């Protein structure tokens, strides 16, 4: 649905994007993550036809980005919600529906459906008088008035409270389930990890990692094993009435098991711990994600420690990064 081949964008002497290449399949939610200045917004705006690439090709539904046909099939949500605050939600959405040549009756129906789905109140109040969350919902509704096949959302949950954030992310998931292709960027890696099918990590204009979150984790992350024994073994640390040894391979786990047995004890629990996307990002980008939480050592937020036999559960949604 989206093909980006060798995208390069230069502003004067500053190279914002260095030859990015990726593609997005229909119905996929594709995440673009990276710190400020990584080039993700430039990438998204190029896809939306707002910015002309210096080099490379960008196609949406087979057509060059920026073409009238492409724009008609596209819904763009910028990072901010720059609404015309003197208009009401309805009049604002109708205006954009007009610009997209949506027949009046269809537009009204579509607008009401979007407003209902987004649980938008105060539909006839001026947009300058509604909350930020409401404005964001109106902006999302606007991106849908033309019933586009492709949605490009730049930080869709930016500045929203946790409740609204979750709602928006679920809504994005629903849109993908309805067949829309969604490309979205985020600072908050939990949003990406919880919603996206595939991800590219950008840093300083370059893609430094790509694939599903699991693939990225497998390629760039590391899995460690915490082996709990009834007796102390070499390099173990006391953990209550147990002893825990952290190793990085199943062979090492076997060695711990043998050592415990030799000492007259046994292994009572083994837990795996996978790198978070945050840690992977830190590794590949060489810097922490902006807006990431500071957490105490040993209590890493998003720590995905679990019993290998247990199903994984995502951690509670963190506060949105401002």
């Amino acid at each position, binding site marked *: 649905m989206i093909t980006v081949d060798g995208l390069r964008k230069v502003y004067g002497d500053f190279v914002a994007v260095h030859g990015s290449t990726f593609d997005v399949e229909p119905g996929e939610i594709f995440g673009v993550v990276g710190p400020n200045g990584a080039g993700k917004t430039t990438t998204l705006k190029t896809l939306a036809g707002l910015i002309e690439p210096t080099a490379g090709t960008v196609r949406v539904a087979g057509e060059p980005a920026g073409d009238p046909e492409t*724009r008609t099939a596209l819904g763009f949500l910028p990072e901010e919600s720059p609404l015309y605050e003197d208009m009401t939600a309805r009049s604002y959405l109708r205006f954009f529906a007009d*610009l997209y040549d949506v027949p009046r009756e269809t537009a009204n129906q579509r607008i009401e459906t979007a407003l209902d789905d987004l649980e938008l109140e105060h539909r006839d109040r001026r947009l300058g008088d509604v909350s930020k969350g409401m404005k964001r919902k109106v902006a999302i509704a*606007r991106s849908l008035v033309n019933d586009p096949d492709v949605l490009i959302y730049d930080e869709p949950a930016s500045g929203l409270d946790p409740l609204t954030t979750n709602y928006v992310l679920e809504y994005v998931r629903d849109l993908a389930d309805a067949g829309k292709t969604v490309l979205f960027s985020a600072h908050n890696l939990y949003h990406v990890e919880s919603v996206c099918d595939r991800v590219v990590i950008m840093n300083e204009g370059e893609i430094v990692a790509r694939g599903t979150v699991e693939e990225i984790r497998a390629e760039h992350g590391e899995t460690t094993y915490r082996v709990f024994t009834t007796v102390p073994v070499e390099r173990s640390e006391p953990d209550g009435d147990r002893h825990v040894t952290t190793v990085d391979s199943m062979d090492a786990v076997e060695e711990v098991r043998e050592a415990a047995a030799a000492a007259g004890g046994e292994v009572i629990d083994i837990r795996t711990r996978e790198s978070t996307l945050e840690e992977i990002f830190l590794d590949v980008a060489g810097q922490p994600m902006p807006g990431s939480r500071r957490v105490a050592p040993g209590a890493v937020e998003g720590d995905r420690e679990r019993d290998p036999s247990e199903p994984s559960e995502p951690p509670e949604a963190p506060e949105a990064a401002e």
Partner: protein
Amino acid sequence: MNVSPRKLLRVARWEVSRTVGTVDRKTAVLGAVALLLTLGVAAGGLLAGGVALDEDIYAVAVSSDSPYHESVTDSTPLEAVPVGAPNADVYVDDRDPSDREATVSVANTRKGQAALGAFRSAVERHNARLLAAEENQSAAFPVGVTLSYVERASERVGASDGSAGENDDGAIGGDGTGDSDGAGDDAGDRSAGSGTASDGGAGSGLGVPDFGGIAGSLFGGQPTGSPAEIAPPFPFSSLVLAFAFLVPMNFVIQAYGSTILNERINRRGELLLVAPLSRTDIVAGKTLPYAGVALAATTVIALAVGGGPLSVAAVFPIALVFLAATFVGAMFARSFKELTFVTVTVSVALTTYAFVPAIFSTVTPVALISPLTLVVRDLQGEAVSIAEYLFSTGPFYLVAGTLFATGIGVYREEDMFTQRAVPLKFLDALAVRLHRPRDVALLSALSVPFVFVAELLGVAVLFALPEGAAIVALLVVVAVVEEVAKGVGVYAGFHRSRFERDLPTALKLGALSGAGFFLAEKATVVVQVVGLGSLPLGEAAFGTAGVGSGLGPAAGLALVALPLLLHVVTAAVGAVGATRGRRAWAGTLLVAMAIHFTYDLTVVSALG
């Protein structure tokens, strides 16, 4: 992307609904007051029988049974007063019915000359009306007229007309001498004590109006204080027309500038840029309502002052330039504070351009620089040729078009939301148009309307200086304006890294810029059509010297080739400096200006 009228109108409709919906009561009241004030002025003019702002400026002492009496009473600026009345400006002595000649005398002052001119025009118009009203044209003609002008040494200049007929050159003449009846000095007195013969040295020094009234009383003059006391007579028609037509524009551009800048604040305009409509659709749609308001206001005011379609057609291009300049300014301004400077600058500059040339209402080619002159002609029922209309309004249309094109060029995400300094944004706007070297030629060609306007303004402003000084000053203006116009596009190209910074590229771009400018400059040949080239200043500014003066083929060819060579050389000199940055460009630009000035001065001196 092509323009879509349907979408353009949608944007326009939306702009109207938004603007109407956001006007607060205070603004609405202020706008209504301004409109009422303007309409009040216009209605005053209407009630007075059209524009009668210069009504009864000159008193003409003429007998009620004189054939001139009707000419005077029909004329707006003339007021008939009894013979022997003191303080008359013009004295018509035809009391002896046996004498076919009438003696017309005035004080030998600027005001006296102006009064004589008004009287002469009034008689011409009266005669023309009489002749036009004659049913049997062949029976009424021919009328023989003998003109003879007589030099005088007295304080009065006189003109007598033996037959009240229209003469060959449109002047009233005769062989009579101005016989002073002793009131000549009194006539000068109406000029607040300054209307003495010594003031009458037309053409010597600045033609600064000599103010009576308050200024006069402050400096010991008579405490009079009516517009008629200003010598030479102030062009109140032009001033009030400028007020009536241009003041509403200021309100329009305030609102228009705000709506454009509003799109740039907080990236509001970003979503329109993503929608399936072109930048031109957006800009045209947002501009249309304001252009409509300007057109409506112009039409209403024109109707109120007794004008017709010509008045509207003359003023509308001024409105377009108001809007276009405001649009570009709003695209460059980084805040509403900067926008205020933009709108004030636009307003002052355009009002000056419209008003200053109209001061020289007796010098038709100069007056025609201002479209307000067309309005005056329309109100007076005089014909305006297409060439004159194009001369007056063409620069406005071209400038407006170029400004809108410049603004639309930067109406895009990459430029409109940045906070770069205004000069850098200007360079960006130019660089947007540069894709190939030949685009430099196009850019230079597009600068010609601005150059034309600047030089016309130069002609109008410098017209009052002594001729020699005016020509030298004008040549400096021409050199500066033209070299900057040719060089700025090249500099923008190098500054924004559109071209390689090397000598061959600089020479190539300079040659293209000079050639593009030269070709477009030839379009200014319209100045010859209206006769501006016949004036020394027009000749100096637009290089019309020698054209049609019977020069040989070689000289004629040289007159074409040399300007081309000049533009190419000076543009190349500037371009070489532009490769090395701003300071080097400034230095080479000065050199180019010096070459240009020297060339022009040589040509003007050689051709006399």
